[in-house]
């Protein structure tokens, strides 16, 4: 095992500051998920965000880090065809033996404790208004304790995906410095699994073939969430680049510029596309465009030139608008927060954009292949694993609230009080049932 890469004091200090920005991304996601849900479940979504973040942090520290590890730390390898495939870390549970200081491993732990919380919050957007609080916490235990650490080890802790370059000559190996795959696509695929397992909200798809519009209750909250997420993403992408790609502190400038440009291009494109399609810019779709731009930047910000970041973001803006449309109307996937389109599809596009627009891997064709193998692993292994584990949870402890709860709203049913007690009229009380 190679010696742990050491960080200079400047890099480590800067890294701490950047990592401490990451929880702002969580604030953003919580506000977006809450704003895009109906008012009757607003407090529930916000509380669920806090609870899954809490569960994720505790479970990750207790168990998850021992599977994920950090670069240069002990790991189990499997020799296949004469090459050592690094499958899983071999750290003790409960952080035993890890000194918490400014070392690289400590900073990885700190960043990952926040990152796994972000990944766990993403499915809440898809499961809003019908996913029980307890079930979402149990699902988070599996995500933070097993699925996330396993895949994150492969990508960030010298696992086999990151070693595709050194073992098989595929460019730099699978590249993702800001968590487009580990956080975003994994969270997005978990959101897809939950949307399928939970089924659509009552009244979303009518027996007559129609699709109901269930409007967001607070678009202002959603847009404020986007601004918080921006700050968090700056920290996430920059800290990831320093820790996992060994970038110098000076690279933070390029990463911040690219992150902002990608989000900016994406929100503008989404606004223009919705203006062209519906005659007016759609605020919630534009917000989703902003988030998709940030997600794309997670994969690519450290490697792209600014013009390429604009292009990657612009494509994400178009993608997210059409993806939300197709998922909702054609594939009957009810995703109130747009989590699948923004995080899964945006993240997959970001991973491809690295191969398409960047000089990672020296622009070799092998880099393409490494990115495709990472994507194949996400779709072919992580999606069935996530779906299967959540399906099993649902057999023991049903995920979905019963019909009464959904009708009353999750706030009243599970928490006993509404988020906005002054406003008690629900718009669908005026429709025939």
């Amino acid at each position, binding site marked *: 095992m190679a010696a742990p890469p050491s960080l200079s004091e400047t890099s480590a200090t800067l890294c701490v500051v950047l990592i401490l920005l990451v929880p702002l991304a969580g604030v953003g996601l919580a506000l977006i998920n809450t704003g895009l849900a109906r008012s009757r479940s607003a407090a529930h979504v916000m509380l669920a965000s806090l609870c899954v973040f809490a569960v994720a942090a505790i479970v990750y520290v207790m168990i998850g880090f021992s599977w994920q590890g950090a670069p240069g730390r002990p790991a189990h390898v499997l020799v296949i065809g004469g090459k050592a495939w690094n499958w899983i870390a071999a750290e003790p549970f409960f952080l035993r033996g890890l000194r918490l200081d400014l070392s690289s491993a400590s900073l990885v732990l700190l960043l990952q404790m926040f990152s796994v919380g972000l990944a766990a919050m993403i499915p809440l957007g898809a499961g809003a208004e019908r996913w029980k609080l307890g079930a979402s916490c149990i699902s988070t235990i599996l995500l933070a304790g097993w699925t996330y650490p396993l895949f994150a080890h492969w990508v960030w802790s010298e696992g086999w995906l990151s070693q595709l370059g050194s073992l098989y000559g595929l460019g730099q190996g699978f590249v993702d410095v800001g968590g487009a795959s580990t956080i975003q696509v994994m969270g997005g695929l978990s959101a897809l699994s939950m949307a399928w397992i939970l089924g659509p909200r009552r009244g979303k798809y*009518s027996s*007559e073939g129609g*699709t109901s*519009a269930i409007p*967001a209750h607070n678009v202002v909250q959603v847009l404020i969430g986007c601004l918080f997420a921006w700050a968090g993403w700056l920290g996430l992408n920059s800290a990831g680049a320093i820790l996992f790609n060994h970038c110098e502190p000076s690279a933070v400038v390029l990463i911040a510029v690219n992150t902002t440009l990608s989000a900016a291009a994406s929100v503008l494109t989404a606004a223009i596309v919705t203006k062209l399609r*519906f005659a007016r810019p*759609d605020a919630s779709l534009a917000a989703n465009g902003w988030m998709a731009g940030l997600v794309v930047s997670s994969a690519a910000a450290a490697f792209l030139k600014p013009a390429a970041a604009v292009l990657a973001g612009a494509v994400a803006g178009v993608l997210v608008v059409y993806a939300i449309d197709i998922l909702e109307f054609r594939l009957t996937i009810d995703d109130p927060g747009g989590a699948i389109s923004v995080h899964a599809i945006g993240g997959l596009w970001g991973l491809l954009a690295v191969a398409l627009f960047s000089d990672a891997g020296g622009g070799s064709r092998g880099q393409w292949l490494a990115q495709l*193998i990472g994507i194949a692993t996400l779709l072919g292994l992580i999606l069935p694993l996530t779906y299967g584990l959540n399906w099993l949870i649902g057999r023991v402890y049903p995920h979905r609230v019963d019909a009464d709860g959904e009708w009353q709203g999750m706030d009243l049913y599970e928490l006993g009080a509404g988020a906005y007690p002054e406003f008690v009229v629900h718009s669908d009380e005026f429709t025939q049932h």
Partner: protein
Amino acid sequence: MIKIEARGAGRGNSLVPYGHILPPRRFWAISWGGLEMKLAGFLLLLSGWGIVVATLPLLSSLPMRAGFVLAGLAVELMGLGLVVRSNLVPKG
């Protein structure tokens, strides 16, 4: 039934939603429907990943590897298609 057309993408800026609540039996059917197709879909997803991973130690040239990785991805996409289809909510 009150029916008001949604503006925009029908998510963010329409004022009043419309639609029926599906009867409970139908929801039960949705959550269990197409189990065999779902299972076949997930098996195809896993098989596709198996092809992709097996490519690495078994093949050495880049074009061959690329071909088999693309083939594995194609198998995965077929599996994803089946899973999506098995989860479609019946409308109308």
